[in-house]
């Protein structure tokens, strides 16, 4: 039987972790090693924005060690991802280049939404336990060092996701600045959290009652799992358990607490912060049960890699989540759901028929879907500048699972659906190669399709029902079933087909199949 081994390195804000995984044909993913080294990059970069040479040295040293360990398992591939501490380093690119030169390991920086998506995948890698819990109204609370992410689930699908700058290490940094004693810490954290959570509740939670919380963190999870007899499937914490945890943290010295909790001593204050945060969130949401599956970013990375090499197929449909999330955003800005769905249908039909010509894949199809769903969100702000305001809204809204660059593609496609396309051509000073050339072409191609689809439903009355698209002799033949007058559509079709022809050198032809 064939199997593959993979090393996932996460350069976190407080720890540098590497997990080694083994995937075998039976759709099984096995963690075979886990190394974790305390490396506090966060405190420094959150405060100064830069990474000191000592930290870089330490990071490189450990990465080189990790490379040795990889040899122990002859790993087939590895990936290294960096999170908020690296993200918030001003000289990131320089630092990353140095690290790559010295260790041969290129660290990719994850945007928050990518990181959270992977975290989310890691929870989903728990399979059955995850599926069962999200049948009820559930929130995933992803507590990391820089920020926390709150994602809401309803009926098996992701509803919304928001990032709050309430990271554990960041809060500790803040408290250090405030010179807070240990006694005050609890109250201060609660106060800080409550202020932001109140706004969150008002805007996103409204009257929703959340039954379960899934927590991801490095601090109270180990305690929860140990309490459950080392069975991560059973590591649920009730609200009353939080009280006993707080009592323990309050009453015992940090050494005794560390021992009782099974964490390193320097983590004890972070456990306290994480516990206060989680308890506050559970209270705000009205949840009764908190599940700590003890998964980490590395698990998500393994899931992602295994999917890519087709050694693993999860049960959960993540694309559906991304789309559901986009739908949620559209709803917030009062977009018409029907209109969006029609547009999505039209755009995707065109996209699918053009595969041979545009050469784009699954991922781009997803961008198009999201762009269709969000095509008019800017109307919430202005009916005139829809393109620009939509662009701004999308750029300012996190869409879980999309990187920053991907989000920009989606936002641009929506923008050019309404506004004039901005061309990039040959430029003396720049030449024809420029950063983002790939994205630029993707934007152009997707814009052409979206514009065409948009023109087909110009009246917003969803006049066109069945659409058949066929590529024949340099023409894209679009056959539509409709009984209605489509003069308006036809008119706009001609205008938007110009851009389409420009991008694809294919002439779109609209034919109606009137049934009498």
């Amino acid at each position, binding site marked *: *039987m064939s199997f593959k081994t993979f090393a996932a390195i996460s350069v976190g804000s407080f720890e540098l972790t590497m997990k080694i995984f083994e995937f075998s044909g039976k759709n099984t993913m096995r963690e075979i*090693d886990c*190394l974790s*080294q*305390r490396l506090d990059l966060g405190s420094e970069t959150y405060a100064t924005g830069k990474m000191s040479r000592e930290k870089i040295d330490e990071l490189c040293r450990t990465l080189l060690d990790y490379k040795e360990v990889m040899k122990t*398992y002859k790993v087939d591939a590895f990936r290294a991802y960096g999170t908020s501490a690296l993200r918030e380093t001003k000289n990131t690119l320089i630092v990353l280049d140095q690290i790559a030169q010295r260790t041969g390991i290129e660290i990719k920086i994850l945007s928050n939404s990518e990181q959270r998506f992977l975290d989310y995948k890691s929870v989903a890698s728990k399979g059955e336990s995850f599926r069962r819990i999200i049948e009820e109204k559930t929130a995933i609370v992803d507590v990391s060092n820089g920020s926390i992410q709150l994602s809401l689930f309803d009926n098996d699908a992701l509803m919304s996701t928001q990032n709050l700058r309430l990271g554990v290490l960041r809060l500790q940094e803040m408290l250090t600045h405030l010179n807070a004693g240990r006694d005050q810490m609890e109250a201060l954290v609660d106060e800080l959290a409550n202020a932001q959570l109140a706004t969150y509740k008002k805007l996103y939670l409204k009257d929703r009652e959340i039954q379960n919380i899934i927590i991801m963190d490095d601090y109270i999870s*180990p305690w929860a*799992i140990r309490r459950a007899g080392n069975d991560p499937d059973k590591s649920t914490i009730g609200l009353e358990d939080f009280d006993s945890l707080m009592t323990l943290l309050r009453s015992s010295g940090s050494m005794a607490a560390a021992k009782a909790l099974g964490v390193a001593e320097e983590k004890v204050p972070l456990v306290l912060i994480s516990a206060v945060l989680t308890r506050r969130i559970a209270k705000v949401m009205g949840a009764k049960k908190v599940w700590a599956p003890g998964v980490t970013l590395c698990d998500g990375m393994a899931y992602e890699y295994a999917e890519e090499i087709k050694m693993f197929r999860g049960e959960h449909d993540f694309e559906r989540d991304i789309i559901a999330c986009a739908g949620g955003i559209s709803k917030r800005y009062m977009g018409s759901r029907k209109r969006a769905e029609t547009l999505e249908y039209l755009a995707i039909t065109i996209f699918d028929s053009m595969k041979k010509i545009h050469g784009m894949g699954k991922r781009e199809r997803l961008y198009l879907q999201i762009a269709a769903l969000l095509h008019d969100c800017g109307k919430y702000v202005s009916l005139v500048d829809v393109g620009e305001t939509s662009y701004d809204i999308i750029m300012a809204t996190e869409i879980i699972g999309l990187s920053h660059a991907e989000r920009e593609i989606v936002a641009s496609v929506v923008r050019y659906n309404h506004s004039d396309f901005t061309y990039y051509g040959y430029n003396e000073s720049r030449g024809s190669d420029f950063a983002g050339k790939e994205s630029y072409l993707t934007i152009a191609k997707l814009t052409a399709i979206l514009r065409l689809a948009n023109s087909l439903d110009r009246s917003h009355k969803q006049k066109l029902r069945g659409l058949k698209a066929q590529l024949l002799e340099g023409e894209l033949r679009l056959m539509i079933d409709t009984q209605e007058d489509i003069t308006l559509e036809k008119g706009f079709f001609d205008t938007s087909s110009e851009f389409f022809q420009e991008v694809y050198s294919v002439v779109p032809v609209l034919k109606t199949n009137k049934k009498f």
Partner: protein
Amino acid sequence: MAEKSNVVMKDAKYFENRELSWILFDHRILGEARDRSNPLFERLKFLSITASNLDEFFMVRVASIKDMVNAGYTKKDIAGMTPKTQLAAIGRATHELVDLQYSTWGRSLNPQLLKDGLHIIAHHEDLDKEEEAFVDHYFQENVYPVLTPMAVDSSRPFPLIRNKTLNIGAMVRKKKKGSELEFVTVQVPSVLNRVVELPIKEGEIKRVILLEEIIERNISKLFLNYTIVCAHPFRIMRNADLTIEEDEAEDLLKEIEKQIKKRQWGECIRLEVEQGMDKDLLAFLKKELSIADAYVYEIDGPLDLTVLMKLYGLDGFEDFKAPKHEPKPVPELPAGCNIFEQIRKGDVLMQHPYQSFEPVVDFIRQAAVDPKVLAIKQTLYRVSGNSPIIAALAQAAENGKQVTVLVELKARFDEENNIVWARKLEKAGCHVIYGLLGLKTHSKITLVVRREENGIQRYVHLGTGNYNDATAKLYTDVGLLTCSETVGEDATAVFNMLSGYSEPLFWNKLSLAPLWLKDRFLFLIEREKKYALEGRKARIIAKMNSLCDPDVIVALYEASAAGVKIDLIVRGICCLRVGIPGVSENITVRSIVGNFLEHARIFYFENDEHPEVYCSSADWMPRNLERRVEILFPIDQPQLKEELRHVLDVQLADTVKACILKPDGTYEKVDGRGKKAVLAQDVFCKEAAKKAKVAKTAGESRTFKPKMAPTN
């Protein structure tokens, strides 16, 4: 029975002082030397062991208590004794011990040797003419060139007498009238054999003489212009242990370090002199070494009885020695088998030295050349010189395996030896970790990572004894070979931690000191207590080398008070007291001292009829539980559990070598009257032989024996 509170259980009167308990242990070994049922030369060996033990005890334990006294430290130990009172009590007890050592020698062993054919010439004056000529010649040829005689006068200060060496001190006078007495000394060279065999004469028994007598006889040749007034051997023991014993309170360390710096060399803590030594000479030595009477031992016999080990090594006398023990093959791992395949069939439990240590060496040897093996990781504490394990590890690295070795440099008295082979490993390309800061790595664990068809597979060896093929023939230890997934994960985590990485989220099977081991033991003991209180089945049987952790002892007292029957097999120090009403009535303690050194740590907990059996590298001592890296591993397979339970049961049934601890703190041999004689170590030898034989016959049926061509 009213339960006593934890506070009451901690009362000093319920504990024995560990040093005094140690001396009782040496007494038990001495008991073996005095036991006429042992072969004569084995008795010599036991006596020799009591002497080398006592030397180590002085250098390490007495030295550090003396440091405490010098530093004015007055904190009491668990038995409520201050360092000062301990030192006084130790002084009395060691004098008694030494007296008994020499009366055993003088009254029993030496006369018996003479009867059985070995004459040790105690004084050179007893040599006959021929022999005198022989030894004088021997002196001239072999001894004289390596001697360094030293004199003390106004221009030459008292010389540095080296720790543990044997010396001859003499008072001399210049051959001029009216000259003053002077002191001279010469070290008996340790490079020469201390036992010198004299030429054998027809029809007479073998005669030997000790080297110091030969030197004494010829001492005038060293100091030509002097008259020798008197000459006597002496030996000193210094507080040489500059690395402070880890068991002591850390707050003391700084103070003691200062004290040591003040001294030019280690303070003299014991002076052994020949009985009847010249008064002036003794007075001079005492003054120069600044040693009080209490630390002077007048010896009636040869100084430094470790010389008896040399006598044991003399050719002949095989009838007076125990037959040489041959470890038996492990049936599950026959020679030439693929060890990994065999382990996959099931966990393999090995009992050394009844069973051979060879499979453990083979495990690493095979791993070194197996193309599927990716990595080998091992902790090494004390390794034999020229160890085949080291060679295999080096070979593995040369074959491109990832080899990580943790070498414990802090293993007492072994430091230099360890550095040499650690460098050798590094040269071969192994990743060598030189111990951990502030912790001694005492655990014995090996991990082999293999890339097999179905994925990564880990093989683990866990043991109670060191990876030392030489001592594995003398120490009784238990080892387990397994490819259990959960143990493999834990083993990986152990090595990650030893490399400086964080603890895993949780442990599956192993418990590690100094992190969780003590808690684990306390939990296991308390669980028995709980069951006993609930009227369910509860029992503890534990075998170890030493028991002196106060928390564990209190937990045992509480369990005993709750009705748990506790049987302890403790070879050495035991600070627990038995038979205290309401505290330890349900506890028995026995100690087994036999031909093999009892070394395995095995723990049995009844757990309400779901017995759990564990083995460990750790004793129930604070230093093991708090200041060392140790591993406790469970034995899970029912059949292997049974085997270990059997080991414990046989030891509990021993009527020959077992001594029972009495409520008054003394030990007494088991009363064997009316019982069948059971000698546990013998039983295990026979069982191992039987097992190996069964396996062999079973194997025979599967092979053919071709007939050879007839030879004429």
